[in-house]
Every structure is written in structure tokens, then in C-alpha cells.
């Protein structure tokens, strides 16, 4: 198992893509800390990860200093984070003409600011270790845009720019920073879409079907492994051929 002995932190690991990522990294041998926004969610993650190696913790990425405090607590008890997966994210869709400031701010805080904060907080440990892996979950929407998701697309494109800059800053220390940009994946997030919209989206996918959370998890596990040591600043598109940039 290639991730043996490594501490991995996965935000938003209670369900969907994050849950699949946490389980996969744990199966590869990492000790995984997965986060949920509620205590009950954290307990459920602990139960899920216990046999694989890992546990859940509570985290709301928008709460003051929550990210810094969590990472400090993890590093004190278990040692430096070697793999960070910034996965937690939300949508607040709506046409721009109707988009409220709150919808914009909530997306920026939850989806983009959180990536900055968590990445910064793990950096000290990674710089000292002269090694580290950061994988940020972007989106196909951040690359191609999508009507009704100006806020979400801006945050996801922001993650991609952030990733490239950070990759340049810390590459000399053996730390890689990459994005995985999922296409249309079957999770709660996409189940919330109206059926007609789902059908129209599937029509644009070369492979003719939605992706599974596991498809994303496998790409993340690869980027987190030693096999991806020479890949940094990239966005790996895992979208069934929905977009070929």
C-alpha cells in the first residue's frame, strides 16, 4: 500500500466524492482524517474509517479559525499532514441577474477561501518534511463556465489559479499541488438538479453516463501517491469526455 504511514486530511468526507476519497486513501494505507460539519457526521465517518485506518472530526470551513485549529490539533496528536484534499464545497445556483451578495459570498467562503486557509495551515509541516501533496477538487464548471453558476464557476476557476501559483511557490520543497476537476458525478449535489437538466447534461458526455464518486477518488489517490511525483500545477479532468480542453 503506497500511502502507508501518511496522515491525510480530507474535508467534506461525510458523503459523496469526499467520502469516496477518504475511504480510498485509507485503503491505500494512509491514516485519514475526514471532516463533516456536524458531530453526528464526524462520528459516522469514524465508524466508517475505523476498520481502514482513520477517523472523523467536525469542521465548518467558514467558522473563524476552525481550519487552523483543526490542523493544529491533528499535527499535535498525529504528526504533520502529508496529504491534504480540499473537497468540501457547496452550490448556490441562480442566474446572475438574481444572484444575491450572500450567494456569492457563501460560495467564495466555503469553496475558495477554505482552500487558501487549509493549504496555508499545512504548509509549515510540508516545508519541513520537504514533501507533501495537496489535491484541490475544482470542477469542469470552473474550466468551461455554466449558466446559473457564475459564483461557483468563479470559485472553482479561482482554485485552479491558486493551485498553479502555489505549485510554483513550493515546488522546490518537494510539495506538489494539483486539481482534480470532476465532470458530472452522481452525488447529492447533482441529485438536486431537475431531471431535464440532468438529461441534457448527460447528452454532452462522451461516455454517455454520469461519473461515480469512485472515479474521482481514484484520480485523487493517484495524484496523492509517489507515482505522481513529477506532476504539479495541473488540473486533471475526470469528466467522461464532457469537456476536452
Amino acid at each position, binding site marked *: 500500500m503506497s500511502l502507508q504511514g501518511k496522515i491525510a486530511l480530507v474535508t467534506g468526507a461525510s458523503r459523496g466524492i469526499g467520502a469516496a476519497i477518504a475511504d480510498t486513501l485509507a485503503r491505500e494505507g494512509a491514516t485519514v482524517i475526514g471532516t463533516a460539519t456536524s458531530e453526528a457526521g464526524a462520528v459516522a465517518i469514524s465508524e466508517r474509517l475505523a476498520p481502514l485506518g482513520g477517523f472523523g472530526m467536525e469542521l465548518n470551513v467558514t467558522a473563524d479559525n476552525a481550519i487552523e485549529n483543526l490542523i493544529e490539533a491533528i499535527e499535535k496528536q498525529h504528526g504533520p499532514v502529508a496529504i491534504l484534499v480540499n473537497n468540501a464545497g457547496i452550490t448556490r445556483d441562480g442566474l446572475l441577474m438574481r444572484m444575491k451578495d450572500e450567494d456569492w459570498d457563501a460560495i467564495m467562503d466555503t469553496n475558495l477561501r477554505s482552500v487558501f486557509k487549509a493549504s496555508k495551515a499545512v504548509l*509549515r509541516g510540508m*516545508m519541513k518534511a520537504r514533501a507533501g501533496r495537496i489535491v484541490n477538487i475544482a470542477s469542469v464548471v470552473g474550466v468551461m463556465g455554466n449558466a446559473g453558476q457564475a459564483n461557483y464557476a468563479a470559485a472553482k476557476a479561482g482554485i485552479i489559479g491558486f493551485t498553479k501559483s502555489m505549485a510554483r*511557490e*513550493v515546488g*522546490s*520543497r518537494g510539495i506538489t499541488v494539483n486539481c482534480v476537476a470532476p465532470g458530472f458525478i452522481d452525488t447529492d449535489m447533482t441529485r438536486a438538479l431537475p431531471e431535464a437538466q440532468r438529461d441534457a447534461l448527460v447528452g454532452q458526455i462522451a461516455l454517455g453516463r454520469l461519473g461515480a464518486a469512485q472515479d474521482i477518488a481514484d484520480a485523487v489517490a493517484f495524484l496523492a501517491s509517489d507515482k505522481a511525483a513529477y506532476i504539479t500545477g495541473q488540473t486533471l479532468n475526470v469528466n467522461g469526455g464532457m469537456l476536452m480542453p
Partner: protein
Amino acid sequence: MENIEARVKKIVAEQLGVNEAEVKTESSFVDDLGADSLDTVELVMALEEEFECEIPDEDAEKITTVQQAIDYVNAHLNK
């Protein structure tokens, strides 16, 4: 005093991967010891750990030579 100077020089040598003999009190991290901007940030982090203190960013920016690091530590520690 000398003790602090020796500790600072040791950390500078370790962090910047230079010989301890090359580290003079008047040495500038960037101009004489070949540090880049990330090296200087790491150096401050290492000083913080060695002397168990927190160096605010505005102070850290002013620490560009070995002497300045020694002065900073002397001024802010063991009071």
C-alpha cells in the same frame, strides 16, 4: 549572548545549506548566502521554533542579516 549567536548561526547554516564557517554576523541571507524569498520565510520559521517565540510578519521582513536575527532574538527573549 554568544550562545544565542552560535544557535542563530547554526540554524542559518542548516536552513540555507551552507557551511557554518561561511555564516558571518554581517552576512546577508539573500546577497551573501544565496537565500531566496522562500528560504528566508523558512528561516524565520526555524528561528521561531528554536527560540519558542512568534515573530510577526512586519518584524520578520526586517530580518535580512545574521546580525539582525541575533539582535531580534536578544531583544525579544529571556526578558
